[in-house]
């Protein structure tokens, strides 16, 4: 009972109902055309996309709730209490941002100023579609899924750069520059550690990678160094506390988001958490064996469990550490992560050559 078959059944049923209506009023031509496989296929893909998209957003929103609550607990205080257990806080934020007045500062580069949040939220939503949750719960089973996700993943700092540049404010320009600097120093170790996973699994398709991990061992054990490099680079990629220079609250007011208010800020905030969701799910898929786990629970639930636990680790890192400066970020990126990533790649190739995998 995969998502596609369920969607096909639903699409077929809808087409038949509409076809029945047309037939009764005599327009049998349209009724007949509606039931053809082409239309049903089209409706099926739309339904699958809708389901995956909505579910992806719901998980991202519960990330915001999880962050508030776990961070609150770390700091010996209760998190937000809006609604039942604080679950409605996200909807309150979203609706409030929706209502706010749209302010465009006077001499700001209008077109680019609007484009930055759009690019950011567009790229993040695009990535939601690429994440498979289970063997039969996915939108796209691409042969080079990993490549596409990381291509989309590294466009966001570009959007932050132009957003910072366009809002005509000294702080935001600095925030944008830092995003560019941070991207350069963290993209290479990230991709190197992903390369080591691809070397071991032999394919770029998420489903195949997870299948390989189910057969043999999870890739976190042979490539433990790779996992550490991947997690650190990921924290830098989604700009969370130890590396959140572009949005450094203390010295750059709000970093590159200073001039964004109302719904633009709401979109950017949502994009940040959607990217966190995608980042955690990629880490789970590549290293923690995706949805493999004892079978008394559905595979999708296993996947979600691991994703939420990994994000709880990110929150714990945010609670414990302080922010580093740009000089140190680049230092860590080039001097620490790069050699580790190369060593890990060497290990992966060695394992592959000796036929262990």
């Amino acid at each position, binding site marked *: 009972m995969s998502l596609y078959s369920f969607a096909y059944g639903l699409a077929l049923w809808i087409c038949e109902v509409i076809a029945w209506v047309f037939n009764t009023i005599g327009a049998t031509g349209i009724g007949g055309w509606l039931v053809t496989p082409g239309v049903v296929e089209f409706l099926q893909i739309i339904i699958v996309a809708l389901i995956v998209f909505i579910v992806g957003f719901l998980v991202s929103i519960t990330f915001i709730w999880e962050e508030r609550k776990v961070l609150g607990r770390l700091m010996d205080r209760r998190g937000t209490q809006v609604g039942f257990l604080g679950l409605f806080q996200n909807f309150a934020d979203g609706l409030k941002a929706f209502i706010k007045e749209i302010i465009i500062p006077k001499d700001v580069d209008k077109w680019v100023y609007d484009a930055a949040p759009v690019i950011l939220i567009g790229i993040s939503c695009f990535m939601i579609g690429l994440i498979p949750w289970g063997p039969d719960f996915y939108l796209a089973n691409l042969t080079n899924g990993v490549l596409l996700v990381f291509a989309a993943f590294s466009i966001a700092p570009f959007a932050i750069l132009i957003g910072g540049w366009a809002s005509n404010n000294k702080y935001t320009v600095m925030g944008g520059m830092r995003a560019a600097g941070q991207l350069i120093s963290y993209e290479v170790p990230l991709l190197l550690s992903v390369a080591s996973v691809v070397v071991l699994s032999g394919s770029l398709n998420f489903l195949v990678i997870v299948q390989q991990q189910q057969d043999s061992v999870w890739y976190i054990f042979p490539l433990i160094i790779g996992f550490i490099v991947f997690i650190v680079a990921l924290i830098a990629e989604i700009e969370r*506390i*130890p590396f959140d*220079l572009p949005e*450094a*609250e203390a*010295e750059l007011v709000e970093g590159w988001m200073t001039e964004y208010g109302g719904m633009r800020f709401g979109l950017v905030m949502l994009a940040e958490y959607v990217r966190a969701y995608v980042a955690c799910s990629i880490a789970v898929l590549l290293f923690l064996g995706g949805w493999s786990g004892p079978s008394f629970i559905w595979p999708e639930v296993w996947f979600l469990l691991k994703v939420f636990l990994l994000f709880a680790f990110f929150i714990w890192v945010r609670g414990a550490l*302080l922010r*580093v400066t740009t000089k140190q970020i680049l230092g860590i990126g080039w001097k620490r992560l790069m050699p580790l990533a190369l060593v890990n790649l060497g290990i992966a190739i060695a394992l592959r050559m000796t036929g262990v995998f």
Partner: protein
Amino acid sequence: MAEMWLNMGPQHPFTHGLWNLRVKLDGETIVDADPIVGYLHRGWEKLAENRMYPQIIPMADRLCYGASMSWEHLYCNTIENMMELEVPDRAKYIRTIVLEAQRIGSHLMWLAALGTDLGSYTIFLYSVRERELFLDLMQNLCGARMTYNYCRIGGVRNDVPANFERDFDRVLTHFLNRMNDLESLMDRSSVFRLRMEDTGVISGEQARNLGVTGPNLRGSGVEYDVRKDDPYEVYGDLDFRTCFEKEGDSFARYRVRMDEMRESCNIIRQAIKRMPKGPYRLKPPRNAPKGKTGWAHVEDPRGEGFMYVIGNGDDHPYRLKVRSPIFVTVSAAPVMLIGYKIADVPAIMGSVDMCLGETDR
């Protein structure tokens, strides 16, 4: 490369209080700094001239609201010095205990501000949580959380409440365990050391010349503490160590304040044991002779607080001068800032523990 002036302006997350650090940047390195103060100037000394002596005590609370007890006490010391009053012993001991409790509370507020500056919201909340305990102690004693109005000219307002020693002992033991948590969160975290070590270096010689005092001076290797070298109240009879470091960077100033918190606990414990019975207040005269002057300086948690008063013949002071330690430390800020990155500014100015209420008076 073209340099640009950047306003880390009155409304900025890192400015605790209101001041505008105009910084000239070459890329991200600071080439020149020009602090602008005066956003909180209310003409305190002019207002003091048309108020009676006891009426100025609540005004002195609101000079530096992070450590209001030490400013109240400084004002009362100045007037006692002018009127040549001898404060009863029990009042001296109570004052010393309350001053040291306020010093810990003020250092914890500084730690909270430093936490948000460096990006860790946890340090802010842990130190504010510990500070609440000391605020409760002060509330039992003086009735208010922050602006106490507790010292009087010639003593203190009321005697200590019931089980005063028990509460203090419980809070101090609890606080000392918590200090290990705080230090593990910061001293042993390499990210903290990475940010704080050798940023904002100021040498002992420069610090002395530029008038920097208090923990900022002791962080640069000058062992000068007004409590030790010009003792007032009962500091002469208690034995405690003047904590100082040699490097003179932000981490040294941080270390000095953390050791000072432990020393304060030690002082409070000694003072509580030796507190005598007896009167806690004497009736001061209402007027002071015209032209009579008096001054006093104390070890405020931020530096050397100093007040100079001239009598006016009736119950108003003719002139009341206040020296604020942060007013002078801010004038030395460019020396600490030039040459560092803009990302280091919160770490440097956070380690200096700004309080703008006293700077602008």
